[in-house]
């Protein structure tokens, strides 16, 4: 599979929700193509908002974001919509905490949903996928080692397998960027490592930019080259994962650390 990468640049980005809640405050970030970025912070710190602004699932209030050739603007600026917005999204894969698979259809159909942008109306309607796309989906499943289950119902898979199908769905998009919003929060510790290793290998082998929201700081430190710490919608840490020691995390979390902040600590307890 060939993939081209795209830089992501946040300029002075703020997000205020309709209820007045501030999601993000004047964020400036530059994420060069091919980075593996972990984003940490308490729930409500803006991790999910940050990730969802990149594919336009959450519209930004002010500032601008460029993703490769595309630009997303705040209110008042030119809005990306319709076909242009869908083209941006087709280049950006997304993995969710609750997998978001269509459970009653096959694993293969779920992966092929990554091709929807490139599929004509009648093929979408009848589920008559192109042969090339089926082969692409199969090779995506191969990467996450689920090919034998291609024709099984998604609901028959375990949580870890479902998340890996969701990762295959993003791969079928041939994306420049993969966004992962708490991808292991619903999984047990060993499975969490499997899924994180999948994302790490995809980043290393295919050069796809990967941005992962994580709650557990040991996972964040272990699997990301670069760590971004968010607190109340602001970036309070941006540096190498290896540089983030306990005091850095205490600053990000605004409190001292507990065993619940560590995945493998939880397994012991």
């Amino acid at each position, binding site marked *: 599979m060939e993939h081209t990468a795209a830089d992501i640049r946040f300029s002075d980005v703020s997000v205020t929700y309709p209820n007045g809640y501030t999601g993000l405050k004047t964020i400036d970030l530059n994420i060069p193509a091919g980075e593996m970025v972990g984003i940490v912070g308490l729930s409500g710190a803006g991790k999910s908002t940050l990730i969802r602004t990149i*594919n336009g*699932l959450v519209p930004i209030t002010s500032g601008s974001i460029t993703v490769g050739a595309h630009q997303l603007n705040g209110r008042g600026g030119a809005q990306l919509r319709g076909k242009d*917005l*869908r*083209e*941006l*999204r*087709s*280049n*950006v*894969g*997304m993995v*969710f905490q*609750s*997998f*978001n*698979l*269509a*459970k*009653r*259809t096959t694993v293969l*159909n779920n992966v092929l*949903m*990554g*091709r*929807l*942008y490139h*599929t004509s*109306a009648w093929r*979408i*309607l009848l*589920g008559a996928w192109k042969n090339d796309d089926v082969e692409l989906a199969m090779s995506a499943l191969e990467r996450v080692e689920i090919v034998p289950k291609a024709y099984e119902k998604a609901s028959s898979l375990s949580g870890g397998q479902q998340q890996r199908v*969701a990762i295959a*769905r993003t791969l079928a*998009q041939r994306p420049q960027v993969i966004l992962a919003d708490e991808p292991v929060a619903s999984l047990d510790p060993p499975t969490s490592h499997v899924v994180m290793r999948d994302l790490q290998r995809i980043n290393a082998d295919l050069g796809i930019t990967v941005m992962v929201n994580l709650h557990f700081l040991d996972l964040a430190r272990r699997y990301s080259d670069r760590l971004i710490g968010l607190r109340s919608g602001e970036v309070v840490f941006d540096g190498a994962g290896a540089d983030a020691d306990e005091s850095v995390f205490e600053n990000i979390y605004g409190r001292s650390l507990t065993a619940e902040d560590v995945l493998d600590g939880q397994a012991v307890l």
Partner: protein
Amino acid sequence: MATLIAQQQPTARPVKPTTQLRTTLWLLVSLIVVAAFWSVQIKWSSLADFPSQLIKYLGLMLFPPDWSKFGEAFKATILSVQMAWIGTILGIIVSFPLSFLASRGLAPRAVNAPLRFIFAVIRAVPEVVIAILILSVTGLTPFTGALALAVGSIGTLGKWGYEAFEGVDPGPKEAVRSTGGGTLALIRWGVWPSAAPEVLSFWLYRFEINVRASAILGLIGAGGIGKMLQDNVQFRNWDAVGMLLVVVVVVTMAIDQISGAVRNKLIHGTWRAPRRAS
């Protein structure tokens, strides 16, 4: 022991909430019930005769029923079921696309609202009334019955449809949007896989309802078993009426059982309803 806790100052006890509104509503409901009984002018004396009359007519009908016209009755039943079948299919064809347009999030509000209103109006009108309205155009034929059932089906299937589409797990919808899929992709792959078993079972359920309703439509002359029933009641052929009742009940129950089993298969994956956990 005066107190259950070792505490000097008891916390303030909450005041019992007043129930004035509830009392008023109960009084109102009781008043309506009394008024209703009074206004329909019930002849209580006839109630005393009711059991004996019932036994008399059941005896006339069922001991024994007249099976000589069974062949004709069977054909009439098939006609009724066909009426129900065609009505259901036509109702599905029209209501299916409309219920997508009536779903919030899948079509603009300006389209949702009038469709929902139309569904509600149709549901407010019984099939018999719809048939009477239609027959001025198409005349008294079984097809009129089928059309009336089709229109009636649009009201319920349309509502059940948009409720099912709006009630699906938002996760797959979000996933489709995140891949760059448009509205068609959203409906086909974000909504339909989750809603399909429920919607298919609604179609079957509406068919069951239409089978029963088709007999009633026969009473106003749309043909089928209802018409045969009406004709025999008119000439007081009670033993034939008894036979017809048996046929109607057996056929309706058989269709309910088969359709119910298929619905269970669709929803739960088993032919019989799963036993509830105690």
